[in-house]
């Protein structure tokens, strides 16, 4: 089957004053159309830079050295001209960030920001057409009174509302791929749970593929069809969500699972020592779309 996103042997290194620092050591990752895939790892594991490479943002950095293949919808993101990559962003692929309030521009109304996003796809759209479509999207993310919200500035809305606006805005151009980097981590737990459920339903309805980047195993379990576990720039385990959670095969995945405190109260989580087993070869569970 063909993949919407196909990453093969992706390497990344940063040039610094003290030489090259390798961040990614050959990542393979693929996402089918409409599939929800999570990339789970700790801070510094390389999960966020992977998303930035998919968006084509790191290829343009002078001190970053990226090699490997990143194919999106049949086109090669690595060899593409800079302006073609830029044209993909916000149209065919879009992104949701951790903190919704700071990723919206505080000096424009929500309506203006929607229009700007929509004109990336169709520069000739007039304000009325944009507002109509934005209203439709805001209704889909269960925002009551969308007309009022469109006239508001981001700071006039709560964090939860801004998160919904971000989701609506990310999906307004019907992208094929949505990159979500720790969405909702900055929000309260109950708001986070609601927005994730909402996002889940919406991408299902629109058949949008998602690369969901998170450190929170619980959130991943609820959202994703398939999981990649990343440790220090290497994928250590991959498979369908159920398989990963019911029979984690890699030492690192097991350590991650064990370290999560349980509401059933099994006592303080075990403290796994960092061991060489964490660098053991990748464990692959079959099944799912890839």
């Amino acid at each position, binding site marked *: 089957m063909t993949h919407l996103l196909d990453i093969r042997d992706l390497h990344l290194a940063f040039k610094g004053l003290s030489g090259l620092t390798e961040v990614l050591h050959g990542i393979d990752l693929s996402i089918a159309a409409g599939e929800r895939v999570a990339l789970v790892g*700790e*801070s510094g594991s390389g999960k966020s830079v992977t998303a930035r490479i998919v968006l084509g943002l790191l290829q343009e950095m002078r001190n970053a050295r990226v090699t490997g293949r990143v194919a999106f919808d049949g086109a090669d993101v690595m060899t593409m001209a800079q302006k073609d990559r830029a044209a993909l962003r916000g149209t065919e692929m879009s992104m949701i960030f951790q903190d919704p309030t700071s990723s919206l521009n505080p000096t424009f109304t929500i309506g203006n920001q929607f229009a700007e996003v929509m004109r990336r796809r169709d520069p000739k759209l007039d304000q009325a057409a944009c507002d109509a479509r934005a209203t439709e999207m805001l209704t889909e993310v269960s925002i009551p009174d969308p007309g009022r919200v469109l006239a508001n500035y981001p700071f006039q809305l709560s*964090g939860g509302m801004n998160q919904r606006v971000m989701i609506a805005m990310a999906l307004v151009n019907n992208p094929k791929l949505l990159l979500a980097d720790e969405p909702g981590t900055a929000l*309260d*737990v*109950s*708001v*986070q*749970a*609601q927005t994730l459920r909402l996002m889940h339903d919406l991408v299902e309805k629109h058949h949008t593929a998602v690369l969901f980047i998170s*450190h*929170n*195993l*619980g*959130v991943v*379990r*609820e959202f994703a069809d398939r999981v990649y576990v990343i440790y220090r720039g290497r994928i250590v385990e991959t498979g369908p969500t159920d398989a990963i*959670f019911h029979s984690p095969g890699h030492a690192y995945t097991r*350590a*991650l*699972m*064990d*370290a*999560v*405190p*349980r*509401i*059933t*109260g*099994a*006592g*303080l*989580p*075990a*403290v*796994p020592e*960092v061991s060489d087993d964490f660098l053991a070869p990748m464990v692959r569970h079959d099944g799912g779309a890839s």
Partner: protein
Amino acid sequence: MTLLSVQNLTKTFQTPSGPVHAVRDVSFEVERGECLAVVGESGSGKTTLANMILGILGATSGEIRFDGATLPAKRGPVHRRAIQFVQQNPLSALNPKRNIGASVRLGLDTYAIGPRADRWLKVEEALEEVGLPREMRQRAPSSLSGGQRQRVGIARALACEPELVVLDEPTSALDVLVQARVLRLLNDLRARKKLTYVFITHDLAVVRNVADRVAVFKAGQLVELGRTEQIFSAPEHPYTRSLIGAVPVVDDAELELRNKLAEGT
């Protein structure tokens, strides 16, 4: 024996759009050696409450008693020293321009703990106690990982030899493996040094495993207070149930418990 007692505590902020009741008529007690979790979402008043216990903020009305004595509005050194603080963000909690040792030593100098000549030794002991190497006192905060910085923050608070420690989301900025280690460390230190904790957090899974009792706050009010096992087997307040219902869980037993509790049956 009661160490901390909060009686009818209220804090009202005057804002241009009218008064905001951050904490409203809250009363509870913390036993010596206990870990009380204070749980709530943003706007629940849990940070305001912590600041009043620490003496950073004055109360609008009500009183805080510590070890039998009412804490005055202007705290003396004895009480300031006895109540210490560990912050959420280990990144900003350490001065980037001072080395680790200087940060940990601050309390020793402020309260003249031990002879001056021995204080660097005491700093090194404090670092060792939180599982950091002694040589780390020469290092700059920027060269430490998040977990190491949080340990320094704990060492700094404990160097004052406090009785009560207010922990404000001490692990929520940390990775899960690091969190597990820091939670263990906090538990060990509490037992070893006979400390009392007020543990502020939004993470109920953490609460379930570290707290003796739980106080649930909503919009400045205490809505439920009970022993941890009781809260997680039969939560009474609908807000407590909705909080438990939103916890992301990883295994099936948890999922079952969560769904059962959230339904309130």
